[in-house]
């Protein structure tokens, strides 16, 4: 069996291997560009119903949002965002962790702060955890 496989392998020329690899790369690129609808490209932070920050997910940063109870800290990283800390009593929005899909929302109701991710081709209108 092993010798048989080697037999087939001998039929490949160096350029053929390159063409196979290039073909697989085309597949990978096609998957990435056509099947990645859920990737977010921005985050919207609201406080008391008003948009206080609209950022892209390109670089890391911390956003401090004041609310009735205190300051909610939003952490942005490339491709994801989360509520890092919140003065609310139950910490639901903090415990949601990182949001990675377009349409995902974390709401800190007591402090009236919300974080939502936007994307060009979101698979969902909104996501709840």
């Amino acid at each position, binding site marked *: 069996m092993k010798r048989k496989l080697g037999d087939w392998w001998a*039929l*490949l*020329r*160096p*350029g053929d291997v390159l*063409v196979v690899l290039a*073909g697989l790369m085309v*597949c990978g690129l*096609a998957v990435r560009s056509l*099947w990645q609808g859920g990737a977010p490209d921005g985050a919207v932070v609201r406080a008391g119903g008003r948009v206080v920050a609209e950022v892209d997910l390109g670089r890391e940063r911390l956003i401090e949002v004041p609310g009735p109870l205190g300051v909610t800290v939003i952490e942005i990283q490339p491709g994801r965002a989360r509520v890092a800390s919140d003065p609310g009593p139950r910490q639901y929005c903090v415990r949601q962790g990182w949001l990675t899909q377009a349409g995902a929302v974390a709401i800190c109701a007591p402090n009236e702060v919300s974080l939502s991710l936007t994307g060009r081709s979101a698979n969902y209108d909104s996501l709840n955890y």
Partner: protein
Amino acid sequence: MTPSTIELTPTPEDRRIARHAAAAIVLTVAEAAIPLPLPGVKPGLANIVTLVVLARWGWREAVWVSLLRVLAGSLLLGQFLAPGFFLSLSGAVASLLVLGIAVRLPKRWFGPVSQSILAAFAHIGAQLVVARLWLVPHDGVFYLLPVFALAAVVFGLVNGLIAARLLRELGARSSKGGASATGEDVEK
């Protein structure tokens, strides 16, 4: 019976093309019996014959064999002038054009496998364009591109390897006249 005024004398080349085309048609019909998960994803075994003809007898004969195969294959399967026929035809024409270029690549580096994969990509490319422009006027057809691309690589590789193997065996046996053996070998 009055003798015909038109005398058609098939040249050896004509007979060779007919034999190769017959082998390709057999493969087309046999392949139609294989159930496939997605419409459009086919191994394209008949292209093995095209590759062999291309390597042994040149591009012109490969064009003849390929187009005859598309025509006669569609007649046998009842697909003639149906959408599937135009998809095969556009795919075959695009593959042949690419093969015409690929066959000029340095032989030392690029063998039948390269030609097969490049032709397979040309095939799906042309089919998707025709499907987008005419059959499914919606960008949704491109959603299947990754599937088709993967099929092109896999089946292109397999067909190319089989063609390379056949060429080696045919080359070892005799330098010419292995035409009838082609069909038999492929079917094994």
